[in-house]
């Protein structure tokens, strides 16, 4: 590894923005809010990440990808630090990344639930979710659980297509 000038935080973030979520490869771990910070501490680069879900099986791979992406550009050593607070929320996913999700066929998340009245069945506010294929608002929730922890399954009653939505937490 050749020695380099101290990289700026912006340079490092731009590099990390090339690391995609292994399960949703159109958005980066920076856009998802999994990367919380990156800093140069001594001669080490420390990347702070937070897991999306307690049992997310992609976290190990994300860590490895982060180290690989930085080392490929000559930045080493790299340390990945995991923090749990503040807990990850889909509210951190910005408008550009939401549009990328939609174009990929995954409906973006609504606002994360805040009050606890959604815990009582029948008293819940039902949000309108548009179909990522035909843009119809005429869709229904099939299951809060999908192919990965972060997605739910919906069905579009207009174009008769099942689709996934990034679930709001």
């Amino acid at each position, binding site marked *: 590894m050749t020695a380099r000038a101290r990289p700026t935080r912006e340079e490092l973030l731009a590099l990390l923005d090339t690391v995609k979520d292994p399960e949703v490869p159109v958005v980066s771990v920076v856009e998802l809010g999994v990367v919380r910070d990156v800093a140069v501490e001594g001669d080490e680069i420390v990347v702070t990440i937070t*897991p999306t*879900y*307690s*049992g*997310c*099986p992609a976290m190990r791979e994300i860590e490895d990808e982060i180290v690989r992406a930085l080392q490929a550009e000559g930045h080493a050593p790299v340390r990945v630090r995991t*923090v*749990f*607070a*503040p*807990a*990850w*929320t889909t509210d951190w996913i910005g408008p550009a990344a939401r549009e990328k999700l939609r174009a990929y066929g995954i409906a973006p998340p609504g606002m994360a*639930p805040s009050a*606890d009245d*959604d*815990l*009582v*069945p*029948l008293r*819940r506010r039902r949000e309108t979710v548009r179909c990522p294929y035909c843009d119809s608002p005429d869709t229904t929730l*099939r*299951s*809060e*659980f*999908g*192919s990965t*922890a972060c997605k739910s*399954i919906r069905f579009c009653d207009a174009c008769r297509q099942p689709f996934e939505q990034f*679930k709001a*937490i």
Partner: protein
Amino acid sequence: MIDEALRPHLVEFLLRHGDDRLVLGHRLAEWCGHGPALEEDIALANCALDFTGQANLMLGLAGSVEGKGRDQDALAYFRDEREFRNVQLVELPRGDFGVTMVRQLLFDAYDVLFLEALQRSAYEDLAGIAAKAYKEARYHLRHSAEWVVMLGDGTGESHERAQRALDELWRYGPELFDMDEGDRALASAGIVPDLAPLEPRWRERVEEVFARATLAVPTGGFRAKGGRRGVHTEHLGHLLAEMQIVARSHPGASW
């Protein structure tokens, strides 16, 4: 940093709550490939993954607070039945779908209250894990509460099975709120919540769901306890045999 006098109590607390999640996660994972519908199969496996992930975090923290070189895998796979500290509720066989969902409701309703309070722990690492898990507990509860209403207020068959499940499981619920001297010492230090005030709130919530589900809450009867001290039903040993066999047959293996 943790007061040395509190350290063993905190390890015990983390084992208790980590074991609840490890054992419940295993019971839910038993449904994988056996769910009543594809969506449910996926839902139960998703919940199992959340609980196993939470167990991984809590047992990992237990090992590091303990400081004796045991990591989460050592704690999950190389302790015997009497060393497990989970409540008996979570170790009971998965039964039919009605038993699984009534048990989930009893646990999830507790878990939302427990984790909500645990997020305010003065011990930062624990508060962080709780804040993460709290978000998961909320959609777990939405899922189980909806199913209990559907099953209870469903067909004659589903109602009868859900009622039978509730009659069987109800006495295992209150153990979730048991505390001992160690817990009280931790609670005084602001590290863990006092569980006593949560029990009436839990009862109110689950009773509301059972009322909507047209299910009758049993009265009287004995109150199961002992899991927190390592006293278990006959079922835990069988579960551990299955869960631990690979790790014990091939110690040190990695993949």
